[in-house]
Structure formats: C-alpha cells, structure tokens
C-alpha cells in the first residue's frame, strides 16, 4: 500500500506541478533517462523506397511506428500499464535472473488503406486494420 501512496504522489508531481511547488522541477521528458522509458518511436515505411511504385498506387508510405523502451519500477506514471505488468515487475524484482520485466508493446492500433494493382491488373483497395501503432504501454 505504501507503494501505491508513493505512486500517487509521483503521479501528482509528474502531471501538474503544484502551485508554489518547492520540489525538484517536473521531469523533462526529453532527458536521457526518460528516453529509455517505454514509448512510441517513429518508423516510416516507404513503399517507394522498397521499389514498389509500379504496383502500389497509394499511399507512398505510412508512419508505422513501434514501441520500445524500459518498463522500470515504479512503472512510468505517464504510461499506462496493465495489472499484469505490475505483478510481472514485482516478481522480476524478486527473481530478476529468471523472470523478465514487463515488455513495452502497442496498446492502440489503427488501420490504413492500401490501393494496388494485382497480377491481373485489377485494382484492389484494402483496409488493413491494426497497422499503425498509436500508443504503447507496459504489459
């Protein structure tokens, strides 16, 4: 329960700096240690760079993104984490050699549409679900 209380304090501190707040300055999300936190990273898949312009009509490419980073304890207050991640973290702390940390994985995925010619020159417009990572979290 003390962990919970501390986490609550962490959450207050990291989201809204209190009026007259005298503690350390709010965390800078771009500082190096934050960079390793579990979060979404940019990855642009270019159909053009793959040399597929002759059969893919649109789009030229899409921002696929990917999740990377550490789920370190306490689990990052600004990232969502499943209950399993909390349990996984505690068990990892007890048995780091054999039990891995929670992994950083997509929590929200969106669709893209691709327009292309098939082998017989018909045109196909297909909606591919779960293609773009919109958000990451600790699982």
């Amino acid at each position: 329960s003390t962990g919970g209380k501390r986490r609550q304090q962490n959450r207050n501190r990291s989201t809204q700096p209190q009026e007259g707040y005298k503690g350390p300055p709010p965390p800078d999300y771009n500082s190096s240690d934050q960079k390793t936190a579990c979060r979404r990273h940019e990855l642009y898949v270019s159909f053009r760079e793959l040399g597929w312009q002759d059969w893919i009509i649109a789009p030229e490419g899409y921002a696929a993104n990917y999740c990377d980073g550490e789920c370190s304890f306490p689990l990052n207050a600004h990232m969502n984490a499943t209950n399993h991640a909390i349990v996984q973290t505690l068990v990892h702390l007890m048995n780091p050699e054999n039990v891995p940390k929670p992994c950083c994985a997509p929590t929200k995925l969106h669709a893209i549409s691709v327009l292309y010619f098939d082998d017989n020159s018909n045109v196909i417009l297909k909606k591919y679900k779960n293609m773009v990572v919109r958000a990451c979290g600790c699982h």
Partner: protein
Amino acid sequence: GSNHSLDGNNEVHGFIHRRLRTHEKREMQKEILSILGLPHRPRPHLWHGKYNSAPLFMLDLYNTMSSEEKSQVQGMPDRYESVRTTQSPHLATYQETAFLNDADMVMSFVNLVEYDRDLSPQRRHHKEFKFNPSQIPEGEAVTAAEFRLYKECVSHSFRNDTFLLKVYQVVKEHPDREADLLLLESRRLWAAEEGWLEFDITATSNLWLMNAAHNLGLQVSMETSSGQSISFKEVGLVGRDGALEKQPFMVAFFKVSEVHIRTTR
C-alpha cells in the same frame, strides 16, 4: 494521395537513415508482403489492359476511405459526409458511401473481352463484357457489385429522343445463334444525358464466385424508342475504345473475415 504522418514541424521522418542493402530490402519486402497478406509482390501486365480497371475511380474511393480513417483517428465527426457525396464524381449515391464504409476490400476488374463484336448473329447491336471476380482471396463475401458505363451527351439530331438500354447476364452461348440471356435491368435514357450509369450485379457476381462455369459475362444492348437496335457510339455510350477514365468497368465491395492469420515462415 500520399498519407504522410507529419508531426508538428512538418518534417517527414526518413524511412531508414541509410540506403537499404539488397538483402535488407528483400527481408523487409518479405515482411511487409506478409503483413499485407500477399504471397508475392504483384506484377501487373501492362499489355493486359492495365488501366481500364478504373484506377482513378478507385483512387477516389481510396481518398474517401483515408479521410474517413483520419477523422476516426482524430475523433472528429465525419463532417465531410455531405461534401464527399456531392464532390466525389464517382460516389454518386449515398448507398455507395455506406458500402464503402462497411467494406474491408473493394476491387475493380479488368474487362477481359478484348475484341468487340458489335453485331449478334441476328444483327442486333450489343456489347459484351467479361470480368473475373474469382481472383479474390478465399471466403470473401460480396456485399455489393456494380457494372458501370459512361454515357456522353449525343449530337443534336437525337436530342429529344429516349433510348432503352438493357443489361443481360449471359446464361448460355450457342455457336450459331443468339446466346440465352437473363435480363438484369432495362433503363430508359435521354439522348442528352451525360454521366456514369451504375447497374447492380451483386447477385450475378455472387453466382460467378460460386461457380466460375456460370461466368459467361454480360451483354448490353441499346434500342430506340421504336424498338430499333442502335449502336453504342450513336447514343454516346463509351466502350473499350473510349477515354481510359470513362471505359466500362465492374467494381465489387467485399466484407472479409476478421481473423487475419499471418502465415508462419
């Protein structure tokens, strides 16, 4: 038609910070083809009428679908609805927008009839069209299919006349006499009319999907108001020799199954 994801500073993030080596490129191609559910990269035949499967119509649908996805991502109400149906020359009916919203896949097909036989054995003007919807992934259900013809305004000599256009499904062919035909739709047209004509062939295309042997194509004929057979050109109907963006084509909307299993390698 690009779908770049631009963050605040309008910069497109590079694909990989250095040029891909060939084997890396091949690995990445293999990976993405697997995600797209394609066994190999398609190689459309240029000579096989590559551009008469209405890519511009499909590009219009693509832009509509992409703007739909964008508004969903940003949680904005789809306030483009009325704009889309009024400004998209190809999405003429609200119903099509509904099919598009519901479809997981839309396909337009190349007309496989290479040579027009303008006259039937009984010297009746007609056009033949054949499409092959069987080239779709297994187990998909056609939610809607249309056959589309473009009609241009004809010269003033016919201006006040009306014509009767009939679309048939070919049921059986005979070497020495007229084919057995099933009338799908007949429509009276004004000579001065111009624009796309859509004909619902959902039932017919499902029949073709179930049994390819039934796929003997479509026939379209035109008659004057006095019942005389008349050629396409005379009433302004665009055939396969017309402008590419106005050539006849078939489009089908599909609903695919939710489970998308990637093949293990």
